[in-house]
């Protein structure tokens, strides 16, 4: 059972060993991309940027979905549901307020 939690997305048919080096590799590459992309963000948009990255980092929601929805003990699932609620709030409010702010930026 914990297996399916561990490899969130793996079904028993195709199990994949956790390769921490791959994860590290991905982390390093993603950090390079992040630094490169963020440095080019228009200065005008730093405030909406903060709420956008906020919404994106709420991707942690996928972890909460697994904890809430899998066949786990009740207490564990309650914890998961609270986490899911928190992430979902961030997703909804983050994207909405970003869009609300961006709508205001007009050229003329």
């Amino acid at each position: 059972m914990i297996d399916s939690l561990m490899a969130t997305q793996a079904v028993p048919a195709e199990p994949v060993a956790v390769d921490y080096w791959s994860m590290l590799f991905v982390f390093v590459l993603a950090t390079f991309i992040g630094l490169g992309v963020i440095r080019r963000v228009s200065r005008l948009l730093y405030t909406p940027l903060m709420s956008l990255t906020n919404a994106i980092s709420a991707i942690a929601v996928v972890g909460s979905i697994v904890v809430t929805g899998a066949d786990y003990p009740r207490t564990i699932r309650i914890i998961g549901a609270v986490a899911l609620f928190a992430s979902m709030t961030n997703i909804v409010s983050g994207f909405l307020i970003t869009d609300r702010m961006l709508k205001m930026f007009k050229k003329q």
Partner: protein
Amino acid sequence: MMYAVAQFAAVFATALFIFSLYWMNDPKTARRGVVAGVTGMLVAVVATWVQPQIIHHGWIVVAIVAGFIVGVPLSQVPLTAVPQRTALSHAFGGLAAGLVGTAEYFLGLGENPAELTAFRMSAIVAEVILGFLTFTGSLMAAGKLQEVKWIPQRPVTYPGQNVVNIGVLVVAVGLGVVVVLHPTAPWSGHAFYVIVGLAVLFGVLLIIPIGGADMPTVISILNSYAGLSAVAMGFVLNNKLLVTAGALDGSSGLILSIIMCRAMNRSFTNVLFGAFGTVQKTAAIGEQKEWKQETVEGAAQLLEQASLVVIIPGYGMAVAQAQHKVRELYDQLTKRGITVKFAIHPVAGRMPGHMNVLLAEANIPYTALVEMDEINPEMPQCDVALVIGANDVVNPAARYKKDTPIYGMPIIDADKARAVLAIKRSKNPGFAGIDNELYVLDNTWMLFGDAKAVIGEVVKQLAGGGGLH
């Protein structure tokens, strides 16, 4: 099959998130970025939900609906409350990460202790510490920014504070190492709770000595932590999408805090441990030197005769919510063929980009907003520099007064303009607590009062309604 779906969704969502941030490089494409972000999130959620191990759906639906119920109103806050909202959002993010980490640990402990390898345990401990300290730290930050009563605005310091704070963190991490080495000992569960408690405590202690006005930088740093806790969760769950999205968030927080620190000419350590804002106010120079005042009528006349007006907004404009009146002033002046530019200092206001959103809200075209480096060479040609609630960002002391906290910070050269009109409510100093000689220069005239009210009257005057007084 389902495995391939999930993996493909992860690659796809990652690409969408990268494009989402990439498109923020231009206001013209930025809204497309939101669409990309939403799509990426949808893809990730659906691909996770359809996995066969998800068998209970009720609570998921409830939690999502609750998220909408709270999230939608949270997205409608006035723009001045955006810093608080961001901090609150980090608190939620930290909480989610901390809770998932806790769930993972106790799941492993109860059902499959063999899975609690040293590597996974380290990731869980990192996730939990980062998550919970971000949770309480961000809550405190949000409270300070919202000026909640029972959270003191001013930095609270006491001797040995840094030692205590760092001590708490060291104990938490040390205990973490012990739990990593003995994840299944009879006392490990309790130790884990203690770690959570210390992280919660550290979050509070970290923020207490930091002044309300330093919160934006702190929020950015907490943003980084929230991102890193998502990365740790990704390591635990072997989920690459979490790792990439967390890394993107982490870099964003890092870069924004570096930008702020640089623009304020301060270091990270100084922000976190400097207890900035406790600086003893020196006797206002204003008492010795002469402050010249101008009437609304005089100000209107001065503006009317100018051919280039540079408006320098600051935190005061945000406090007074004066942006819509500023827009009316802009209209009155441009109607007369006067060129009006807005000079935007990178740390004007209380968060990066603060002035830009406020002015955009008031429908001022973003092409009229000029960055500090671009406007400064033009300042000697400027007829009137209109300073609206800005103080530190136009303080010439930054250029030469080595003993002031803003020494070395680049400023907008308002003092080089032919004339300066400055709007503020009193002779009090700004955020950094130091006097500003700009206000007592020969060619400076003050307009004391709330920014919204004062500009409103200038606009009336210009619109020909001046006779009503």
